């Protein structure tokens, strides 16, 4: 049994919260630059150029690339050989979130109750945390701040098994079409197929934690990603919704076994501020 002090977790979370919000990373910058250079329409190219300049500036100054620094979402893979000491793991993640949002000059965008009071908690907690137990004695945490311009445009639908591949393709493309300029295109599209109602949604969220443009290891799903990418970009919503070749920067599909009667599909959209960070402790 390996002992891990929760203070170590809290400090790591605080650091990764700031990092993800300020530094988009070279992979995303290269992707945005390539899309910019492919755009033929001046306005669309200028918008992508502004986004690239913005993201470089944010990293240089260590300020948030977008004022919507999101609701904090964590995927936590806990090695089952770890014994946490010094307090609660869950609390350490919330505390690290609060610390990171404060120290990083990040916006606090969480209300403590959704319907009646909607009072801001002023420290961006609670975070949304998904735990998994895995073999070994390491703790792996992935953080993705989720902005709500794109989150609000996300959808889940329970398709019929008979809807098949075409049904899935049409549903995903329609979701992006309906979102139009609202989710801050160019977007990354996370798709979860299978499981149950909420499992599909969770898969679509985890799909948005993959590196941009990465492919599902199952070649059939990888081909589905490519076809979706092509059809979504043919919508020509374009950067900021002003038209152009770049509507999606990537389409990531994740799947899970499902019930004989079902074909759940979730589409989770993410804006071009495709941010995450991860740490292994």
């Amino acid at each position, binding site marked *: 049994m390996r002992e891990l002090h929760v203070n170590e977790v809290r400090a790591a979370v605080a650091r990764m919260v700031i990092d993800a919000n300020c530094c988009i990373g070279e992979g995303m910058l290269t992707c945005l630059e390539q899309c910019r250079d492919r755009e033929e329409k001046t*306005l669309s190219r200028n918008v992508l150029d502004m986004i690239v300049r913005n993201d470089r500036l944010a990293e240089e100054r260590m300020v948030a690339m977008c004022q919507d620094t999101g609701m904090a979402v964590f995927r936590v893979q806990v090695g089952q050989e770890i014994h946490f000491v010094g307090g609660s793991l869950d609390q350490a993640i919330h505390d690290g979130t609060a610390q990171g949002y404060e120290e990083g000059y990040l916006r606090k*965008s969480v209300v403590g109750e959704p319907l009646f009071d909607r009072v801001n908690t002023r420290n961006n907690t609670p975070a949304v945390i998904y735990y998994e137990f895995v073999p070994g004695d390491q703790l792996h945490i992935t953080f993705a701040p989720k902005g709500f311009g794109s989150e609000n445009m996300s959808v889940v639908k329970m398709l019929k098994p008979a809807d098949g591949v075409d049904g899935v393709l049409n549903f995903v493309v329609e979701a992006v079409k309906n979102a139009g300029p*609202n989710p801050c295109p160019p977007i990354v599209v996370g798709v979860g197929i299978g499981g149950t109602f909420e499992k599909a949604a969770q898969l679509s969220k985890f799909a948005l934690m993959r590196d941009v443009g990465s492919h599902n290891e199952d070649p059939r799903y990888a081909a589905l990603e490519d076809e979706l990418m092509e059809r979504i970009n043919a919508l020509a919503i374009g950067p900021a919704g002003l038209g152009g070749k770049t509507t999606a920067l990537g389409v990531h599909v994740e799947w899970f076994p499902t019930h004989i009667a079902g074909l759940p599909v979730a589409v989770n959209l993410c804006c071009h501020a495709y941010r995450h960070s991860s740490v292994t402790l």
Partner: protein
Amino acid sequence: MIKLQLPLKKEEIARLRAGDEVLLTGPVYTGRDAAHKRLTEAMARGEELPVDLRGQVIYYVGPAPAKPGQPIGPAGPTTSYRMDPYTPALLDAGMVGMIGKGRRTEPVREAIVRNGAVYFITIGGAAALIADSIRSKEPVCYEDLGTEAVCRLEVEDFYAIVGIDSLGNSLL
């Protein structure tokens, strides 16, 4: 690129067309979901508003905190449609412009035409860059709302695109 001084004059607004790129200089007021709800509820009760929006432009933004020595933190636009339920009342009360991102609903477009107003869009997610064209930020009201409080910003050469012009032509 059209340079415009704020507050906007009605005849200047009338000349703008959807798709025009502009640089705005002068005061704008921040306001988003919670502030819009409070303002329109106060109007419905017949109360005097804590901010005079007549002739003014509102920017749909909830800025991130400013680092020491900076007037404001990253401050890009938020999605406009969420303000649509409140917008016609504000336009009818004399507000002349809005800055945000994304599409508007038909009642908003109609209110823009009815009042000779304008809807500007700016680039979502370009928050750090946009903050460089904001010179100052002063709280005006609803400070308890944190990032959603109404503030007066002084902007200089603030880049925007005409999204809906006073004739109702829409870019998106």
